[in-house]
């Protein structure tokens, strides 16, 4: 009799669980002085100073907004930004920026930021900003640290289930020794010299040169360089950021 009751109870619990939709995972909390539109609903700061986000929310903000993720990383969005948040298989944050700009602080680990057909993966402790200008070009600025991976990639609003399998190990993926990872390494190496020389052009090859521009300055900045070490480069949404030399101005440090 006891067994029958137990089976019935387990069965009922299972049935109840199967019937209920799983609650959405919490992505983080966003705050702004002006209303934020989340999932089409306007969230007013007069109602609450911050709003929780799920890992599949889309939002837009009219004033600067700060998003602190559940993983304790921080994104600060420019006014008039529009983005969708999510996570990759490892649980790390994935941000799909449709419009505007974002300052990132990868406090606890890798971040995955996709915008205008480009993926940027800041390493742990990296800080910088990515802005999509009116012409659809990406303006990139690195303050600390470096990118584990960056380049042209088909951006999806949501990271596909096998997203990490296409990335090198250094970017949290499964691929070892591929171009992206080695380029990052080469870029870092070139960056030490390149930053001192004041130009990523010191590194050989188109891809390596453009990558070094960013990574090199990142290394220099991490080493305590002044604001002059910050790099700004632009890349178009059509062509590759790191693989299209015309997208980088020769005068860009």
């Amino acid at each position: 009799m006891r067994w029958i009751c137990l089976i019935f109870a387990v069965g009922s619990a299972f049935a109840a669980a199967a019937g209920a939709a799983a609650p959405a995972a919490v992505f983080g909390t966003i705050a702004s002085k002006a209303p934020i539109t989340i999932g089409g609903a306007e969230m007013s700061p007069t109602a609450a100073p911050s709003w929780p986000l799920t890992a599949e929310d889309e939002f837009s903000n009219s004033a600067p907004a700060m998003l602190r993720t559940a993983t304790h990383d921080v994104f600060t969005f420019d006014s008039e930004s529009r983005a969708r948040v999510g996570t990759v298989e490892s649980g790390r944050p994935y941000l799909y920026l449709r419009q505007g700009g974002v300052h990132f602080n990868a406090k606890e680990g890798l971040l995955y930021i996709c915008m205008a057909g480009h993926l940027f993966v800041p390493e742990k402790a990296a800080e910088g900003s990515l802005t999509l200008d009116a012409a659809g070009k990406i303006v990139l600025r690195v303050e600390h640290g470096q990118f584990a991976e960056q380049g042209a990639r088909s951006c999806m609003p949501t990271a596909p289930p096998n997203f990490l399998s296409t990335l090198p190990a250094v970017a949290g993926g499964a691929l070892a020794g591929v171009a992206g990872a080695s380029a990052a390494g080469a870029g870092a190496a070139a960056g030490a010299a390149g930053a001192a020389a004041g130009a990523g052009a010191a590194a050989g090859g188109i891809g390596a040169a453009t990558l070094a521009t960013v990574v090199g300055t990142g290394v220099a900045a991490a080493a305590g360089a002044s604001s002059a070490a910050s790099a700004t480069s632009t890349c178009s949404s059509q062509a590759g950021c790191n693989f299209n030399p015309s997208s980088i101005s020769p005068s860009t440090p």
Partner: protein
Amino acid sequence: MSTLPTRSSHLLPLQGVVLGVILVSNWVQTGWLSGTNPQVLANYGYRELWLDHVEGPTGALELFRQALVLDSAFSYRWSDLGEALAGSGQMESAEYCFRRSQELAPRSPQIAVRAMNFYLRRAEAGPALQTAATVLALTSDYDEIVFSSLSRFRADQEYILDVGIGSNRRAADRWLLYLIGPGRTSGADSRPFETWKWIESKGYATREEAIAWSDWLAANGRERDAHLVWQRYVSSDAGYGIGNLIDNAGFEREPEGRGFDWRIAAIAGVKAGIDQGVAHSGRASLRIRFDGSENVDFHHVVQSVWLEPGHYRLSAWIRTEGLTTDQGVAVVVGGVSTAALSGTQDWTKVGAELTVHGAARIGEIMLVRQRSWKFDNKIGGTAWIDDVELRRVD
């Protein structure tokens, strides 16, 4: 010769000084000058919180703590500290703060919204729904915020209805309208159906709500259900759907302009509307006035009807006054038309029969005046229509 100061001119500066001392003393005590005003501290706290500066002696946490010490009876101070504690991962302490803030201000929707956000953040459905219920009970201003939050966090539908809405009839109505709002749900989503079923079981259904629900059902391919909802909750004609398939058949009330009531569209050269002074039966009829300026192809008074396969008889009463041209006014359904009346005629019954084959479907009954091919084709005059009937006769 020296003059002594008058009593009043001597005392005024002294009084001013004393008053100044009192004010300064008060300001210092309350913190206006010392920078320890709780609201000022809280503002600084938020600035630090938004700069991601939570910990440390000048961090948000400490500033909110100081503000709370200065004004621990103010609910917002507790919520502020709760916000910062949650930001630093001290969830148990944060929960205490949010609970305390609710105790201090149980009728503040803002305090309840903040608590709801905290519980959503912690993925605690029960308390989140309880605080949501508080917000919904206190104000309708935050309906959209609450419903959007519960929807995004995929709160269990049964809990939303039983805990979040409960006996709040207004919230039940708004939740259904939220779910069936543009672009929110499709016919494949079970939540609108569950909500309507729940609303019906509680006896909360209103006519306005039923009209919206019927519209949504029809738009999502559930025409039969839409018709049944209309029949049960919207139609005011006693025999609607049982004997006569036409709602508002005698035009006794202003048409809803949607669903299974008459829809009257505007067209140049014609004015159509209810006439409370002329009727075949009851107190009103539909009047169509042609101003003689157009050769109008009129089919702008329409009603959707639910047609099961079978044989039907259509009838209506029409009266005309000075209706010109060779094309008069008729009633049409499923391609079958009654006789068209023109000229001046007293109330005349017109009729037609039709057979519906195949599957049950939505059809349209309309009042029609066809375009004339004569030289003198611009129609003037007036027609009245009343007591329209469509009855199944097999």
